[in-house]
């Protein structure tokens, strides 16, 4: 049978291995902290009508900025409303994509954490058009 000190290595080797494990754990903790910070400050940007409508959303899918150029406004209300919703969807898609990339890098693409983060995002990012506001049928209106 192998002597005890051979099976577990020398005290020096054991300490080196513990140091390496502690260092790896520390690196991972730093990576995860950075990931969490980056995740919370994620922004997505989407455009429509060329670049006449530009929307930015945060990680919750909430509108952070909305820019409408005068030439986009000239398309009329219905087209502009659709364009804003489309640009928001594109911005939310970018949040999803960037979140997936960041999470895959730190947690692994197929890890349970990556899946949980993706599910959480899917739940948070709403689908435009799901609400009750529809075109006004008031005579004289154009939407």
């Amino acid at each position, binding site marked *: 049978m192998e002597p005890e000190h051979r099976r577990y290595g020398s005290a020096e080797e054991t300490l080196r291995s513990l140091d390496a494990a502690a260092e790896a754990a520390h690196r991972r903790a730093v990576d995860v902290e950075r990931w969490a910070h980056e995740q919370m400050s994620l922004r997505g940007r989407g455009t429509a009508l060329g670049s006449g409508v530009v929307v930015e959303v945060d990680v919750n899918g*909430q509108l952070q900025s909305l*820019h*409408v150029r*005068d030439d986009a*406004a000239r398309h009329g209300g219905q087209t502009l409303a659709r364009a804003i919703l489309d640009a928001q969807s594109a911005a939310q898609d970018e949040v999803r994509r960037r979140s997936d990339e960041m999470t895959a890098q730190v947690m692994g693409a197929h890890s349970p954490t990556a899946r949980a983060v993706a599910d959480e995002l899917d739940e948070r990012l*709403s689908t435009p058009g799901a609400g009750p506001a529809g075109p*006004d049928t008031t005579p004289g209106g154009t*939407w």
Partner: protein
Amino acid sequence: MTGHDRFDHERLAQGDLDRLAGRARRAMDWRRSVASLRGEGRAEGVIVVADANGTLVDLSIPTAACADGGRAVAELVVRALEDARRDVASKVSASGRETFGEDSVEAARIEQSWRDDMSRPVVETKPLGDEPTAPPTHARPPHPGGW
């Protein structure tokens, strides 16, 4: 400690656990139920619908609201969205009071959380760098639906 004391203590602890589990279940059911809540906001004919997270989910813009140019209509959308978020926050709070009780800790937390979240300034609408400077082509009518 007697066996009887220990038994009573265990029964009490189990009761506490049951109550906590019941509260957690109610909280989860409530959270699911508010996901379908919507708030509506209006600004000069622009109508915005926001979900319980305050996210814009539907939007109607009268063409007349576009008359003063891109920045003006963007500001109307933002104002309507802020209005919609206040509306949904108030519905969520009402639902919290109804589910957990008027003076419950849960209702107070919900009220605070949604009020804080929904009262944040929504967005900036400043013009893009390449914003054309063309003046509005015509004045906006005073009342929505009247064009």
